[in-house]
């Protein structure tokens, strides 16, 4: 059963690519159908998991031999434990919603565009209505089928990752998603920016991936297995924790660090965060959402998975070196990305930086050992961030409609082109508002509040003051930029005619919004702390019980403290109201005080990386490796040898063969004979009697000689 989960989308991928590429309706039916099948399977697995007592100790697992390695074999398999089940739940839901949403977003049912070409966004089509009047309407995506194929492959990767019982297949899923993100960011490959963003995304994550690969190799050689069950056995962990590795790390810590670097790439943590905002160059909020809300979660999921390993030498107080690094990177990213988000005007970019920031929260939580809190925030965040991305997609879609309708050329993603959309797009507005409030951590009602509060409480409870304060400030900024976004987009008056003519999107798009909005509120209730005033105890803290059961030692329940609660309520409400007040009247970017160049330009990281890494790499590749080393040095040596041989040959030829052999011996003898011949031929007169005379003279002479000398 679990084996089959990733298969339907994969089959859909192959079928669409190989067979139904030309048939748009069939393609999306296949895609959505496959997603629905996987969703159904996931729900069955999830429900069955709920029915098992102490599920953590009785996880579903199944393995096969994959590779022979000497006398032994490398096994791969699937495993669903509480963490896996919880993640599977949200993955199945979001993926199904994405598939459904894509049908509407890619304009299924609309006519083909007038000048649309593959590789570029659709530009709209002209239709003539019954009255003979011409309208410009949105046109269907030229590569509609291909989009669903990519989505299918992506879903396959994500399911593979979640159901894996070992690091290797997890890595396989991880990389397949990397490929899909590359393909989807570069979906409109005709755009130069999209193309470069795709390469950037792939390369940046690959930096992390190679470290992760090393980590996997290290882990495999240290334990002889990659299966979670084997690795996380107490004896193995103990051995790993006590084996010293490099630079003062224990083996466990070092492996954890290597894998964490992979996560840094995948989850877009500082300093490898640069790809994610650029990934918004990707064509649609849908694809952006895929790798921003879903795929990046995979990184956090991997750290969650590796949590026992990372904390293997963690004694409960005093973070290990690896954990400190993780906590530092997480909290730094959280606040760093939040500062950038406040100055972005692109609705998708704001969300992208917000995602980076929120992932920082989770990573920081894991760094300080708050396992359950991180998992909780991972899932709630996935729901409400998916909601927000889809909502922004809906906004953009509505704006595009308006832009086409009015013929106005405006950027449909720029917040300063919007305004007053709440009346035009009510469903989108309300769901977006719910998502925004959840992101801000609006007290009690939203899921985001419960999860974020738990992280803050954990940091506070264990005395990690720096982390606590940093995250609190980041949370404040989060609430602030969220409200800024909502205010600019939905409140006030339309800033452009396109905004004034924006239209609500079709049901295929709004339905997923509603579903996700439900989760954005409701999921929080599964994890209300037991000791929370009033509400605590009304509903049991199911999430803590269930997911906590994944770990060998069930994490203890935190003592309740009022301070973190007050802090989180304070920053959420403060940020929201501050954002509302500050942007209520803002009409143009000029009036925005926060358009500071350093924030707007993302602290100049792109430029710095370009200067520090990209260009030197290109220089090393082109100039040093190829032109200098290969062509100049190595080929130079070869040519030198060749020249030496030629020179030697020349010497032999010019100084030995030619003068001595040819001229002296060869030509010399020849000339001698020739000259002699020339001299001698004069006596060859051709007269018979002359010869006879001569021979006779010789004969006589010899006879005389003979007589005189011998006789």
């Amino acid at each position, binding site marked *: 059963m679990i084996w089959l989960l990733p298969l339907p989308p994969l089959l859909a991928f192959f079928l669409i690519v190989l067979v139904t590429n030309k048939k748009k309706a069939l393609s999306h039916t296949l895609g959505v159908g496959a997603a629905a099948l996987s969703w159904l399977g996931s729900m069955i697995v999830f429900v069955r998991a709920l029915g098992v007592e102490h599920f953590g100790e009785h996880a579903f697992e199944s393995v096969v031999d994959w590779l022979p390695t000497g006398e032994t074999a490398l096994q791969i398999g699937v495993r669903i434990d509480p963490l896996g089940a919880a993640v599977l739940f949200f993955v199945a839901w979001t993926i199904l919603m994405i598939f459904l949403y894509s049908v509407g977003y890619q304009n299924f049912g609309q006519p083909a565009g007038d000048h649309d070409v593959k590789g570029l966004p659709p530009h709209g089509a002209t239709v003539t209505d019954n009255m003979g009047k011409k309208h410009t309407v949105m046109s269907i995506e030229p590569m509609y089928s291909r989009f669903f194929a990519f989505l299918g492959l992506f879903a396959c990767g994500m399911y593979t990752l979640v159901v894996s019982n070992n690091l290797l297949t997890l890595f396989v899923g991880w*990389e397949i998603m990397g490929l899909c993100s590359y393909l989807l960011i570069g979906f409109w*490959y005709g755009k130069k920016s999209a193309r470069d963003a795709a390469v950037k995304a792939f390369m940046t994550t690959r930096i992390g991936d190679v470290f992760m690969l090393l980590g996997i190799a290290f882990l495999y050689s240290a334990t002889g297995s990659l299966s979670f069950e084997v690795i996380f056995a107490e004896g193995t962990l103990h051995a790993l924790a006590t084996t010293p590795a490099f630079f003062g790390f224990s083996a466990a810590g070092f492996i954890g660090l290597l894998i964490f670097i992979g996560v840094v790439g995948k989850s877009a943590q500082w300093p490898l965060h640069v790809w994610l905002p650029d990934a918004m160059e990707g064509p649609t909020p849908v694809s952006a959402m895929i790798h921003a809300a879903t795929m990046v979660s995979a990184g956090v999921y991997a750290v969650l998975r590796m949590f026992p390993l990372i904390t293997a030498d963690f004694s409960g107080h005093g973070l290990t070196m690896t954990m400190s690094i993780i906590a530092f990177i997480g909290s730094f990213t959280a606040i760093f990305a939040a500062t950038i988000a406040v100055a972005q005007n692109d609705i998708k970019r704001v969300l992208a930086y917000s995602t980076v920031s929120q992932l920082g929260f989770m990573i920081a939580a894991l760094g300080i050992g708050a396992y359950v809190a991180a998992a909780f925030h991972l899932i709630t965040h996935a729901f409400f961030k998916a909601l927000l991305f889809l909502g922004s997609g809906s906004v953009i879609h509505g704006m595009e409609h308006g832009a086409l309708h009015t013929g106005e050329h405006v950027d449909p993603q720029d917040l300063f082109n919007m305004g007053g959309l709440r009346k035009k797009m009510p469903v989108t507005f309300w769901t977006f508002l719910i998502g925004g409030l959840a992101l801000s951590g609006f007290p009690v009602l939203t899921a985001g509040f419960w999860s974020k509060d738990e992280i803050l409480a954990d940091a506070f409870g264990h005395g990690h003051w720096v982390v606590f304060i940093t995250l609190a400030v980041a949370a404040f900024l989060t609430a602030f930029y969220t409200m800024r976004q909502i205010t600019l987009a939905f409140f006030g008056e339309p800033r452009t005619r396109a905004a004034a003519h924006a239209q609500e999107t079709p049901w295929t798009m709004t339905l997923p919004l509603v579903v996700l909005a439900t989760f954005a509120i409701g999921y929080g209730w599964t994890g209300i702390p037991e000791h929370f005033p009033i509400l605590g105890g009304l509903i049991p803290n199911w999430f803590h019980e269930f997911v906590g059961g994944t770990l060998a030692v069930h994490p203890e329940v935190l003592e309740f403290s009022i301070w973190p609660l007050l802090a989180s309520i304070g920053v959420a409400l403060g940020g929201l109201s501050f954002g509302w007040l500050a942007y209520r009247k803002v009409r143009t970017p000029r009036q925005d005080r926060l358009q500071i160049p350093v924030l707007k330009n993302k602290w100049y990281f792109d430029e710095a990386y370009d200067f520090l890494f990209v260009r030197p790499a*290109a220089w090393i590749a082109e*100039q040093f490796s190829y032109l200098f080393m290969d062509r100049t040095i190595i080929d130079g040596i070869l040519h030198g040898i060749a020249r030496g041989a030629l020179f030697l040959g020349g010497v032999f030829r010019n100084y030995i063969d030619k003068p001595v052999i040819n001229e002296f011996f060869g030509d010399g003898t020849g000339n001698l004979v020739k000259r002699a011949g020339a001299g001698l031929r004069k006596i060859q007169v051709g007269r018979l009697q002359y010869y006879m005379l001569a021979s006779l003279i010789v004969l006589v002479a010899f006879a005389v000689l003979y007589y005189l000398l011998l006789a």
Partner: protein
Amino acid sequence: MEFLNSHLLTLILFFPVLAALVLLFLPGEAVKLIRWTALIASLVSLGLSIFLWRQFDPAAAGFQFEETYTWYAAINSTFHIGVDGLSLTMVLLTAILTPIAILASFNISERVKAYMMLFLFLETGMLGVFLALDLLIFFVFWEVGLVPMYFLINQWGSEKGERTLWKGIKVQARNYASLKFMIYTMAGSLGLLLAIQMLGVLFQTFDLLVLYQRWTSLSDGTLLGLPVATVKAVAFWAFVIAFAVKVPVWPFHTWLPDAHTEAPTAGSMILAGVLLKLGAYGFLRLVLPLYPAEAQRFAGALAFLAVMAIIFGAFASYGQKDFKRLVAYSSVNHMGFVLLGIAAAAKVGVAGTDAALNLSRNIALNGAVLQMFNHGLSAAGMFFLVGVLYERTHTRNLDDYGGLFPLVPVYGGILIFTSMASLGLPGLNGFVSEFLVVRGSWPILTVYTALAMLGLLFTGAYILKGIKQVLHGPLNEHWAHGEHRLAEIKAREIIVMVPLMVLILVLGIWPGWLLEVINKAMLMLF
């Protein structure tokens, strides 16, 4: 049937030559007939090889299907051939790639007969190296393979292109490349020949199985007036350099980009697909078993060269403007991993006592052999795809392409697929072998393995650069209209790619069937 079983290897080995002789008597104008005859002949070889694969018993020890004939009695060299799992894998690779390459060269229209005959000779040469169990036979086939390839590059190579030598002397690129290929390989194998002669004189036999026993057990005393250890070390390097040139290992690699770039498409396919494997095969078949102690001693140096190949291969590839050259350099990069695995195995040696290290050694070897096979598939595919593009556009300059995806969607899809295999995307074959090599080398050569990751990173960079420049980006209008309009990939060309792609995918998902054989062979090798 009985005959087939007892002479299977000879049949596989000489069938191509037989077919080449048949071709000789066909009229030169009957181009179609010649092409199909050559293709069918190579398919027969493939069929026989698959039969061999089915008959082969991976669990049995030693060599199978051995055949011994008198050959050169005066110097005690016999025609001794046989297969184990390692040879079998390589024979299979050769047998698979040759028909594909022949099919790929159906567009060759000048001197088809000579071309096809050379190809079939080439196949015999390559198979001979993999099957030989006698050093002299090995060397003979080793050199036999050079000649057809020289002519293929020299006569059917790309006509354009010049190479500037010193003082502004210009030569035609394909002449330069073929000569470089030939001389470099020959020069490299001189030492090998000497060392082989020494062994032959010493033991009065060239039979590999005998030499395995006797040469390795020779440890003290003097040889030729020198200590045995010194002689062995020198002979070791003679072997190593011969194979290193062929693999090719940095810094002996510069013939490769030239030869690959100038060779005709099918030539590049075979060159990258099989010929490079001859070197790696030499390492596994001769160097490691004959010189375990020396290999252990110099493993660090080998690993260093391997890592240099991985890193600088990747960098140099990234620095290319010529698409084919980019792919050519990727071979340096990928074959570096093979050597890294071999170096790791050498470092542990035969007599490793640490079980964990022995395991790592076996994994590294498995990875290296699998990488040989995988690289054969993906490199052949990549070269073919470059050839398809070149045939249509007559340019290899990456800057001349751009945004071709909408024009050739099927081609684009295939190119991305194959590139991803070359990049080592999990789920495709390249990943499995690279992972195994990294896993096997990590505990043995930690620092080198870590450095190799830099190369792995840039593998991604150059592959993406290729895709980006060719398929993505704004469409270069030059190829969109009129006579330059880029044609989609043809059915024949798709048929060429299909077996490669299927194998790439199958090996990526379920490599067990192949690794089972390799694994057993590697266990027996040590």
